[in-house]
């Protein structure tokens, strides 16, 4: 059989497409999962995808600003995780559930 047409080095577009795929998977997780924690993790997944594209672009642009952006994204993600998990804990304490659809008091 002929060898697979794999180039020596992966073009940058692959990285970006990978990040797109991961992002969309994150969206899917956000949309289709009902466990608050999983939803939250899907958000983290999206953030990671975005980080990947940041880093790829900074490779493309030959400057490390993208790295710094993704560093900031990480920091923000950390803060968000702290607060979000605290919120989840409180929600669980008050409602004994992690079902995201149970927590729909915003309605009306």
């Amino acid at each position: 059989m002929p060898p697979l047409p794999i180039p020596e080095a992966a073009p940058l577009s692959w990285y970006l497409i990978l990040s797109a795929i991961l992002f969309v998977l994150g969206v899917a997780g956000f949309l289709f999962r009902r466990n608050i924690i999983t939803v939250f993790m899907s958000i983290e997944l999206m953030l990671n995808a975005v980080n990947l594209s940041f880093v790829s672009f900074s490779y493309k642009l030959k400057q490390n600003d993208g790295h710094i952006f993704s560093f900031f994204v990480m920091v923000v993600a950390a803060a968000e995780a702290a607060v979000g998990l605290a919120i989840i804990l409180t929600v669980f304490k008050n409602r004994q559930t992690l079902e995201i659809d149970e927590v729909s008091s915003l309605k009306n």
Partner: protein
Amino acid sequence: MQLWLIPILPLIGFLLNGLFGRKLSKPVVSAIAAGSVLLSFLWVLKTLSGLGAFSGGLDSAYTEHYYTWIQSGALNIGVDFAIDRLTAVMLMIVTGVGFLIHVYAVGYMDHEGGFYRFFAYLNLFMFFMLVLVLGANYLLLFVGWEGVGLCSYLLIGFYFLEKYATDAGNKAFIVNRIGDFGFSLAVFLIAIHFGSLDFGKVFAQAKDLPVESAPGWVTAICLLLLVGATGKSAQIPLYVWLPDAMAGPTPVSALIHAATMVTAGVYMIARSSSIFLHSAFALDIVAIVGVTTAFFAATIGLAQNDIKKVFAYSTVSQLGYMFLALGTGAFSAGIFHVMTHAFFKALLFLGAGSVIHALGGDQDLRNMGGLRTKIPITFATLMCAGVAIAGVPPFSGYHSKDAILSAAYQHAPWMYWVGVITAFMTAFYVFRALFLCFFGEYRGHHHPHESPAIMWIPLAVLAALSLGGGYINIPKFLEPMFPLAEEGGNEWTVYVSIAAGVGGIALAFLFYVVAPSLPEAIANAFRPIYTLIYNKYFVDEFYDATVVNPAIDGSRTLLWRGADATVIDGAVNGIGKTARAVGGVLKLAQSGYIRSYAAWVVAGSIAVILVMALWGGAR
């Protein structure tokens, strides 16, 4: 020279007492309060001696610049303090008399609540007063001006549980607003026309103005300044707040409403003399205002039964004297009177306070009498004050009042005569009060007792000052700033004024010691006049009817119900209503499920990306 130390020290006292006073013990509080003022008094002495003010130095102003406050275009206002002879006199009065009154207040307020609050306010007042005096430009002067107004408001309303006190405070504040309005307009005009607010620059330019046929705005500035002065120094037509201000504790009346703050107007006009000198008209107005105020207040003072009210009206009339002096161009005489008046009027109030203290808070002359044996020290000191204010030679009041009257005579004889009559009435009602208080037999019930030493020692000091203070030759001291008026040479004016004073005392003695029944008879004989005077010419009622009530009703109906309730609230509520209506429509899209929201977001973003892809936004 560190001028800034002078006001800062009381400020520190204020901060300490205001912040931690609640926890500190009374001795500590009073030590901080009086001590800070004493320190700044000593610092004033050191500064003045350092500047050679006592040895004929300090002919020109000594200025210190701290930092630039406002820098806009040509206008450059800095926070800088200046000290010249006028300032020196005021500094001595404010810090010296202020210190004595602080000491007195320690004893007087001993049984009152809010001890630390009182002294914090008092120190704050000292700070602002010193800023007012030291400020080297109109803006700083204005800062101090407003600050003392604030403190006077706070202290008049010190017994904020009584309604009359708070009302009096509000009255003082509002009436002062009117004056301050004029003052601020004057400041603006000055800034416009002189391009600066620094005293030095302004007066230097003012000197170059043509003396006669000065442009109209000079007169405007002067009149506006006068408005401000009438507000602060309780002149017609804005004097009404001062008598009510007696609602405050007596030391306050002594310090703020007799010795220092109310003379701020005088100081300000004297300070602006080189502007006023270019507007003879404004000077005439000042003189007329002064003399009329003096006369009217004196007449009102004749019939008051509240001892503090009597002295309050006498304060007003004495201030009238000062304005008369200013108006007749004898600025130094005016400042001279400021000083002597500070001595004897402070003494009068403190003595009155001592009497009230002795009677456990009773202020009505009709409940006094025969106290001279019971509180001899107070009696003696008050007598000194009386002879001083009555202008009996050789005591202090005589010198200053004589200087004023002679100046008035050279300016316009009728003013002189009115002044003489006023002097007569002054002597009369002051001694009326004193005789009612100390002679005859005791008509009250409370058991009187002499005040503690901490109260009567200041009295004694002030008594000494008001007896001998006349020999501090202020006009001589101020000569480099205000050239002395040439001696009129007609001796008889002096004798007439002396005679007026002595006559007034004698009449009072006749009425209230020898034949106590006479005044009643006379009052009945001239019932309408008596009622008119007794009710202070119904001025308050007049103001209420003409100014106050219309203002209140107008603001209530027009501003509150009309503008605020309908227009503003209507707008706000209307916005709210519309928002709610719109939201009610949008609400239908809100399932409350986070994931549905997210789905919408995703759909939207997909649409955007599609558009970008197909119509080449991305390329």
